[in-house]
């Protein structure tokens, strides 16, 4: 870790920041789930991707603006190497106060009555933080999960944590950009990327289904990218 090539890498500086930020935040974090989360070190960035513990996460929300809109449901499933167990999966609807809009219900299929039977935001976020400790978060289109989780933590704890992420959309985009051929942005949708990699049809809009679908997509992407087995966490981190 003392080699000069490493210190010259801007990506690495940024990533070193992750661990540094974690340690810094740990000092001020309130007692509880957030503190517990921050007390577990993140995986070393030079770890082979096959050995990294990953948590595939998906949120359903009332909209795209984390300040205005609300988190509706959270789904996640942990996995490692090319394997995951459905017995480890989690899905929970949140009993947010917001009134659901019809146009939105069509997408996520969560109705007001289901929502009212949901659990409190604190309980769900704490379940997520507990599962995420020591793992890397995997999402498709990171902005939503990143902003909504940050916002939720501000509301609950008055501060936001750092969390390393992998984004399957970004991985696919990097690949397409390298080809230097124009492409339709819709090609980057979860459904379309899965189709291209011969994964089964995926249509559901449910946080858990999407989390599983994203994990499968990542496995397929790694099957192509990591043929030589040399891919490390650094190569795929956001």
């Amino acid at each position, binding site marked *: 870790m003392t080699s000069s090539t490493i210190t010259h890498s801007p990506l690495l500086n940024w990533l070193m920041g992750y661990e540094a930020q974690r340690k810094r935040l740990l000092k001020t974090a309130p007692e509880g789930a957030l503190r517990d989360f921050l007390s577990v070190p993140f995986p070393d960035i030079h770890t082979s991707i096959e050995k990294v513990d990953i948590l595939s996460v998906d949120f359903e929300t009332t909209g795209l603006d984390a300040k205005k809109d609300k988190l509706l449901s959270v789904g996640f499933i942990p996995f490692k190497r090319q394997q995951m167990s459905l017995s480890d999966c989690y899905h929970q609807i949140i009993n947010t106060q917001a009134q659901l809009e019809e146009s939105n219900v069509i997408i996520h299929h969560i109705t007001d009555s289901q929502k009212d039977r949901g659990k409190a935001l604190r309980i769900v976020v704490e379940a997520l933080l507990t599962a995420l400790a020591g793992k890397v978060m995997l999402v498709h289109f990171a902005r939503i999960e990143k902003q909504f989780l940050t916002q939720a933590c501000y509301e609950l704890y008055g501060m936001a944590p750092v969390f390393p992420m992998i984004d399957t959309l970004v991985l696919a985009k990097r690949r397409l950009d390298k080809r230097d051929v124009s492409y339709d942005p819709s090609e980057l949708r979860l459904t379309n990327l899965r189709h291209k990699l011969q994964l089964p049809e995926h249509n559901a809009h449910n946080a858990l289904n999407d989390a599983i679908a994203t994990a499968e997509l990542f*496995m*397929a992407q790694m099957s192509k990218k990591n043929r030589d087995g040399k891919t490390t966490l650094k190569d795929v981190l956001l």
Partner: protein
Amino acid sequence: MDTELSEISTFICSIPPFDSLPKHLLAQLVRELTINYLRKGEQLPPKGMTEARLYILRKGAMSCLSAEGELVSRLGEGDLCDAFYHSNHNNSDEKRLNVHTDEDCLIYSVEASVLQELGERFPSISDYFSQNSAQRLKSKMTKVNEDAILSSTLMNTSVGNFYQSPVASIDVNKTIQQAAMQMNEQGYSCLVVIEQDSPVGIITDKDIRRRCVATGLATSASISNIMTQDMCTIDIKNNAYDALMIMTAKHIHHLPVTKYGNLVGMVTVTDLINNEGHNAINLSSVIHKANSVKELTEISMLLPKLQIRLAKLGSSSDHVGKSISAITMAFTKRLIEMAEFKYGPAPVPYAWLAAGSQARQEQLAHSDQDNALIICDTMKTGDDVWFEKLAHFVCDGLASCGFIYCPGEIMATNVKWRQPQKVWHSYFSKWVDTPSPQALLNSSVFFDLETIYGDVSLLREVKKELLKKTKKSTLFIAHLSKNALGLRPPLGFFRDFVLKQNGKHRATLDLKRNGIAPVVDLARIYALAEGISAVNTIERIQQAAGTPSLTKSSAENLIDAYAFLGILRVEHQAKQLMRGESADNFLSPKEISKLEREHLKDAFKVIKSLQDARQSNY
């Protein structure tokens, strides 16, 4: 919530045997799944998964190879891999397979212990995986036979066709002893109890045993003490199937039949099950009355319809084959009678012989004609002119009735197959003693020979000599076996294709060549090796059961396999005939369900194992 894991659930419940799982157990099973992504060329099980598991291929393709490197099966989407389901591979008959991926694969799996636990509440699941091919096929055929009984003509027949009338009845004031005496006298096990002309209950011999003798009730007590009061009845307008359903649901064997609310008769389970169609018999008698080839030709147009009808009634292919063969025989006989009338009586005794499928009574509508003539040795030069005329008349007649001329010229019109008894003796001797390829080809047709018309002793004597010879001639049997074993059933299916032994794919399965014919050949070998004179395949197998050639359980398995192939063939042909197409034996995997494909694979396995056993015999 409903949509949680919905896609995975939908996929799992499309695969037998999980398609029969109740919803809550399915949800539980899905929660226990593990998902793996394997790259092309990786081995199953994935690293670190040492416990016994069932693998379900979600996407991709895999090959299963035997320890010797021979392709055993290829798996596609939705196929199950149970090669690692049993933790200890001590089962001598199931050697461990090598499974590798041919493409990148998304694979679901579940621990065997989870399925076994599930099986405690839903036994058909664990049975499915603990049974071997033969056992699975047996359960399937048992169910098919049960269904055939239920769904046959009963649906289309009124209960009025079955009931017995008048009903044995007894006055409500009579004693239990009097009821028992009346049952004895009239030979009934069930009486309807009457009070002022209207039925008020029913009493069976079982009631006497259970409610009187067993409880110590005096036999002098009134029958009203032990009768069943709220008895079920069925209106005469209902069909027989409904009657059977009521009896099955209520576990009763007798059901009073009413008309406008009045008791008119009684129907029993036995009455319903003994019912059989008599279509073939009706048609035979019409054929017998026909006076010209033209009339016969018109009647023959009904044959495909008969085959459709038999298939619709859920008849087994054995039943269909026997019915159609009986009708072909009726046509042949009537044509011979017409020829004898036209050309005068035969100069010497003779017999008209059917060969191949007709002799085995396994013919389906409008197959080829295979026939021959055996003539008494007293025939003189010049007599053949009459037999030649007979042969042409009958063969032409059969052809105009839709039985096409045999492409191999195995017909009585061919002088080679129109010979006196002594020549037939010499033919068979030569075929058995010096088995050339052509001789073996001939023997597969001529060892299935039956007299259709004429002097039965002519063929009987030839056959007797022949069987004496074949029983002793291991060389001949060995050659015949080698020849017959050339036809191998395919391995199974891969996606919507038939997978052959060499790993190549075919769009359709030739049911006859790759399934039915190999069984027919095996049965013939057993018969010739054991000196069995029967020609029908099932009869041959039944008679060979328990001989050195074939164990009893293998015989049962082979009959199950043969019967299942027969059902598919009959259903396939019925569909074609209904569409007005000509019937063939080429089944597309798309035509059949996933479960039927599994059963077919099981049938192939049974056939293959008996072929292998035969092969190692020599």
